[in-house]
């Protein structure tokens, strides 16, 4: 049954592991054809999931609208502290809906590679949902800056993240101002290097990519004035278009959409990484992004990170080189780079099957997929991710969550995963409950609640997974029937993918 083993490998690596029936589908379709299907995603979400996502209203709003509804304008003029608190609580719906959508898509979307890439690229261009205004922009950031481009051109991803208010706020560039410029006042007084540095260190070249502190300062100058409306006039959603007509004198652009404030820009001529960038305003930033996206160090770094994510903690250098060459040849076509990686013999070598320790996200989502769970309530999954140290949108630092065994395997993680496996297998997680406003905090502790869901059937689970290792099979066969599914979900086989 070599086809089933390869099918399991593809399901684990390109996506979040198999759901019941997936392996048969992949094997029947053939590995290359299935990879092509994943690279050109067209399949729709299951109807009930699509219907639920359709109810998540904040995911249909623009950044300007969420800012007005849940940001500072909602608090304007409200004095009563209780009322203010109530308004602020209401704002939690934005990250909550984004988290729910992310988990539901990861569990149910047939476009599994797309969901893996959302995880990958979000972490590459990480923002943290609890930093100030990012709480109102987190959902639109993933929707507008990440999702549309995960299989597209790297330059488009880079440009979309650079102009999204969530990134401009997270790495402080919205305040980055040429000292002494006409617009310099108050909190907009001088250079802020934060975004410029991470743009080179994390988003493109890498820390050894050959830039200097002078390049950081120069790039910060190039990006002066990149921000969003200054917020002193809170505009209606329709004003977004009016803003685009530059020079509407006296009209302040709304916060929440990208704005180039030329009165805070440094218009001097600059030299970045040895390239001349004449002072001409907003276009300097695009020229710098072109330069960074096409730099050889970027090609190599992106290829390395993708190969690490999909193949091995220490990806084979030949694979990284091949991916980097494709990146350079195709001007950063992500789909082409992935095609190169997935075609490599190193990726399909059976010796690499089931060797990667799953991140908490992969572990939790793969368990919900493999058991065919009905997930209407995303909170048990999210609570588990919090316990394991990987809450969605909760990485504080801009380097994002890592994907390696060294980052996630530790003594505490093992006992927590097994505790969760026991609760899931016994049907003790309230997964199919319709989420109430304040559902009980998931503890993952078995024995607290009884009989929320039917217990997981061990034989069906083995069939979904396309078999288990001999050692696990022997232990499972000797165990009490009610422990069998938990032993599979808590086994070394299932900790890896």
């Amino acid at each position, binding site marked *: 049954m070599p086809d089933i083993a390869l099918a399991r490998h593809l399901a684990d690596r390109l996506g979040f592991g198999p759901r019941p029936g997936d392996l048969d589908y992949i094997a029947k379709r053939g590995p290359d054809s299935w990879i092509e299907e994943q690279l050109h995603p067209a399949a729709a979400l299951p109807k009930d999931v699509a219907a639920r996502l359709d109810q998540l209203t904040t995911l249909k709003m623009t950044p300007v609208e969420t800012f007005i509804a849940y940001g500072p304008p909602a608090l304007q003029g409200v004095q009563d502290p209780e009322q203010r608190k109530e308004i602020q609580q209401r704002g939690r719906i934005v990250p909550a809906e984004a988290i729910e959508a992310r988990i539901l898509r990861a569990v149910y979307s047939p476009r599994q590679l797309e969901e893996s890439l959302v995880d990958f690229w979000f972490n590459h261009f990480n923002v943290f949902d609890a930093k100030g205004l990012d709480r109102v922009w987190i959902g639109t950031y993933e929707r507008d800056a990440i999702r549309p481009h995960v299989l597209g051109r790297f330059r488009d991803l880079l440009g979309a993240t650079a102009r999204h208010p969530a990134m401009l706020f997270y790495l402080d560039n919205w305040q980055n101002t040429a000292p002494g410029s006409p617009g*310099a006042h108050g909190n907009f007084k001088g250079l802020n290097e934060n975004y410029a540095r991470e743009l080179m260190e994390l988003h493109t070249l890498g820390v050894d990519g050959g830039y200097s502190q002078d390049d950081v300062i120069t790039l910060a100058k190039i990006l002066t004035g990149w921000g969003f409306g200054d917020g002193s006039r809170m505009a209606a959603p329709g004003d977004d278009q009016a803003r685009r007509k530059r020079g509407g004198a006296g009209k302040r652009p709304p916060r929440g959409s990208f704005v180039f404030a030329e009165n805070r820009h440094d218009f001097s001529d600059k030299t970045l990484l040895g390239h001349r960038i004449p002072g001409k305003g907003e276009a300097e930033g695009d020229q710098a992004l072109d330069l960074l996206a096409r730099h050889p160090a970027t090609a190599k770094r992106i290829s390395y990170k993708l190969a690490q994510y999909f193949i091995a903690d220490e990806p084979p250098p030949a694979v990284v080189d091949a991916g980097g060459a494709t990146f350079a040849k195709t001007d950063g076509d992500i789909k082409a780079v992935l095609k190169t990686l997935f075609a490599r013999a190193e990726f399909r070598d059976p010796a690499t099957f089931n060797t990667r320790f799953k991140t908490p996200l992969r572990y939790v989502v793969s368990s919900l997929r493999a058991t065919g769970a009905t997930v209407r309530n995303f909170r048990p999954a999210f609570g588990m991710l919090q316990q394991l140290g990987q809450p969605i949108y909760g990485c504080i630092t801009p380097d994002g969550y890592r994907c390696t065994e060294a980052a996630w395997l530790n003594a505490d993680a093992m006992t927590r995963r097994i505790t969760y496996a026991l609760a899931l297998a016994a049907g003790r997680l309230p997964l199919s409950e319709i989420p109430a406003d304040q559902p009980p905090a998931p503890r993952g502790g078995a024995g607290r609640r009884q009989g929320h869901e039917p217990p997981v059937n061990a034989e069906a689970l083995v069939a979904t997974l396309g078999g288990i290792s001999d050692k696990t099979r022997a232990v499972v066969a000797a165990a009490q029937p009610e422990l069998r599914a938990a032993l599979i979900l808590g086994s070394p086989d299932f900790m890896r993918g």
Partner: protein
Amino acid sequence: MVSFDRRKFLQAAGAGTALIPFGRAAFAAAAGGGNKRLVVVLLRGAVDGLNVVVPHGETAYYDARPTIAVPRPGRDGGALDLDGHFGLHPALAALMPQWRDGTLAFVPASGSPDETRSHFDAQDYMESGTPGQKSTADGWMNRLLTELPVKRTSTSALSFGPTLPRIFAGPVDVATVPLGRAAANPIPLDRPVINAAFDQLYTGEDTLARAYREGLESHKKVMKDLQADMMAADNGAPSPITFGQDTAHLAQLIKQDPSINLAFFALGGWDTHVNQGASDGQLASRLQPLAEGLAGLATGLGKDYQDTVVLVMSEFGRTVHENGNRGTDHGHGNVMWVMGGGINGGKIHGRWPGLDAASLYEKRDLAVTTDFRSVIAAVLAGHMKLAPAQIARVLPAAPSADPGLMRT
């Protein structure tokens, strides 16, 4: 590095940065360092050391920071004077008793010899203990574990938080302690039938099997030690998960488990590029619980405090000048905090390079005059009683230890 009393140093100006080689006599009493403990607190994100130990005697400090400087002692929101030249941020008032009783010292202008201003690289170097060398696979606290002259147990080293930090990476297993109240929750694996079944899945010597066994063992120990206390706490009002709560746990664990030698905490939120505040504000609101947690650890340890050293460090300092957003950007030199028994405390150590334009590193940052490794080495020698050859294995190529930091 020379230990120094600042005024004496100024009299002896020109003494320079000469490092006094570590002497044999200082570790003659090496045996019996068995139940000495080291607690390391890493402030991830680069805390603004110039607003922690404030050089209030320097006009240049106030010139560089028109809106975020901590005022001189005696003024409203002023620094708490330490030695006439330096003062403590007022939010750190909880630590003044330790300063006064001589168990708290600071080493300003300390940091890494590596010039990186990348958080991730700088933290990596501070945790690997090998600045500039990325290929080091393990962390220095894991290497330290192998050098301790004691029998190792599953709780010799405790890491607080859900993931194992780089500083503890390496061959020796380290227990992770959950933060806050979760630490003492019972788990289903406590039940014999379940335990026995899973034990059979994890019989090997691979990384997962080892982590599994380590996790169960440390869970049992931690639960046993904490349970009585946690039951009492559950009856009271739920308290937020704070550093103070976790240091209280640590103090209690140490009292009940003499085999604990090392503990590590990481605290985030110090990357104050925007609106960092002065006496009040963002930075102050983080410093206060840190100080209270450390002071709580000192008092909670009781007599065990005498056998404990706490080291607080951060990957690099921040720019001397405030930026355009009333914050500070990534800089170079920072300040290290050393607290505990055996410390030559109530003193500012190291050589202060000053903040005048000519003394700044790359014309913008506080210079580094004390390598962070020499401070750690001093603690390893004077407190943990390690021999020079052992220290060289923990911190390869580190400059000599500073004998003045510890009372010998």
